[in-house]
């Protein structure tokens, strides 16, 4: 059998599913322990920064890093009192959610048209969309800065959202196209015969069935927007500054405010942790889809 057949003849995660059965036990073999050890060790930097965020400021710059101390929340408190972090957090949340929403709506509709209907020149469109993913952001950062300056869009929500949607739309369309292709056409034909209009079919049949795919795409868009730095750095100043930019600002010319920085990092990472634990299945699906297709 060909490679393609060998890989796809089994349901995509059959062995992964087998791994997930509860009947399995954890036998302390070398491999099993090694696996746990490696993963645990890999995440060490995450523990360290989380630990650091709970240390009293006095201890942080100590040449001797300590492991035992009385945890304190003073770093976090300082963030919110002295550095207006609540507003920054709000900025990031609003920008991320709005971008996500706009991307999903546009991407689902566009991907549906590409996947289902014979669009003239669709191969060219698809290829062009894919090529946008390879563009170094710095290439378009410059014209955007100049243009946004002229349009008074610097330091606004809209300014960033417009750009983030443009950045994420290509990959979102690409992902959704893959997911939509997996929805059997017969379902839509049955709905057609049942009397639904095309828009009704999309809303009542296709979207519910492809919801896991939408979740994966939404996660990717959210993560990208939440973590994005270059554009936010260039296009924001005070009013709409986002979390990553603010974190970097703690690195000041003569000192680095590690205490507040680590607290800010933790806060920035927490939503990602939530996303991972709630939606890990969708993330893996999304990643593998992006890679294989």
């Amino acid at each position, binding site marked *: 059998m060909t490679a393609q057949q060998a890989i796809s003849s089994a349901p995509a995660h059959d062995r992964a599913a087998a791994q997930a059965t509860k009947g399995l036990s954890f036998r302390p073999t070398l491999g099993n322990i090694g696996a746990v050890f490696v993963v645990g060790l890999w995440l060490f930097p995450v523990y*360290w920064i989380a630990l650091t965020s709970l240390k009293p400021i006095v201890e942080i710059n100590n040449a001797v890093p300590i492991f035992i101390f009385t945890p304190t929340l003073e770093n976090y408190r300082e963030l919110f009192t002295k550095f207006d972090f609540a507003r920054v957090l709000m900025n990031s949340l609003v920008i991320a959610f709005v971008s996500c929403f706009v991307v999903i709506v546009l991407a689902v509709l566009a991907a549906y048209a590409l996947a289902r209907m014979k669009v003239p020149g669709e191969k060219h469109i698809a290829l062009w969309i894919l090529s946008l993913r390879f563009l170094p952001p710095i290439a378009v950062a410059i014209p955007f800065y100049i243009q946004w300056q002229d349009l008074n869009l610097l330091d606004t929500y809209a300014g960033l959202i417009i750009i983030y949607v443009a950045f994420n739309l290509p990959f979102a369309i690409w992902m959704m196209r893959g997911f939509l292709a997996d929805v059997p056409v017969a379902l839509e034909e049955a709905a057609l015969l049942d009397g639904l209009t095309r828009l009704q079919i999309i809303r009542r049949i296709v979207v519910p069935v492809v919801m896991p795919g939408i979740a994966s795409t939404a996660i990717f868009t959210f993560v990208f927007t939440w973590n994005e730095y*270059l554009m936010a750095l260039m296009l924001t100043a005070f009013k709409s500054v986002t979390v990553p930019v603010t974190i970097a600002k703690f690195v000041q010319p003569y000192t680095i405010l590690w205490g507040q920085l680590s607290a800010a990092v933790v806060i920035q990472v927490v939503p990602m942790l939530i996303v991972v634990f709630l939606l890990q299945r969708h993330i893996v699906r999304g990643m593998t889809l992006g890679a294989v297709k």
Partner: protein
Amino acid sequence: MSVAARLPQWQRREKLVALLLLGPAVLYLLALSIYPTIYSLWIAFHNYSLYRRDLVSFAGFDNFTDLLDSDIFKQSFVVTLVFAFSAVAVELALGFAIAVLLDRKMRGANVLRTLLIIPVLISPVAMGLTFRYIFAPTYGLLTYLMKSAHLPTADWTVSVTWALPVVIFADVWQWTPFVALILLSGMQSVSTEVTEAAELDGLTEWQKLWRIVLPLIRPVLLVVVLIRLIDSIRMFDLVFVMTRGGPGSTTEVLSLFSYVTGFASGDMGSASAIAWVTVVLVNILVAVFLRFLSKTA
């Protein structure tokens, strides 16, 4: 001779619906990607200073040829390639090893897989600064541990020899899980019948891996490598917060060099030229890879 397709009216209407669905997204992308791209290219061929926008003039290929005379540019180019290929090579090797390690029937394997996604989702800014903290010369954890073990220590992020390796280390830390997870998925989607047939044929675990599984996941592997290479060449955030391109220009990757040229010196023309060199580099890479990919298909 094909029979002329006389489309019933309802099918013609459906075509209209398709264009309406596709339209907004495409128009949006056209406006926001084609326009800046062309504008950016235009800037690259002009003398364009951010601080004297009234003095814009046509420069032909000057911005590009000036780069060839610039030592910093050449260093930046080399640094970028060294960074990209080293990081991806390590990510591939380590990622593969981890994938093999995690490909086992074990209670909690799923949990481990979930935990491994975390580094991928953390912003490079956050992780870059975390590593900067760990690698800090005087008070960083690593320095402390090395000294305690009486091992020689270095200035890490401010050292000329160690700055780039440290940045590579941070990138590897963040992206190896990505490679590992994709390879793991690829490995696990190989049909069990194929691996069972291999077992019956007498292959050992190791042989199964090298001679059966690896060739089957080769397309996935190549795509992952391509994606990582492209993203590494475009990298900006990590190096910006960790070393700012220093010390000297030992970690000044192309994206950073472009940024500094544009926003510190204000020379947007050159900055654009540098950015476009990066674009060309990426496209060459993609072309090479696609040819490679189609040859092995």
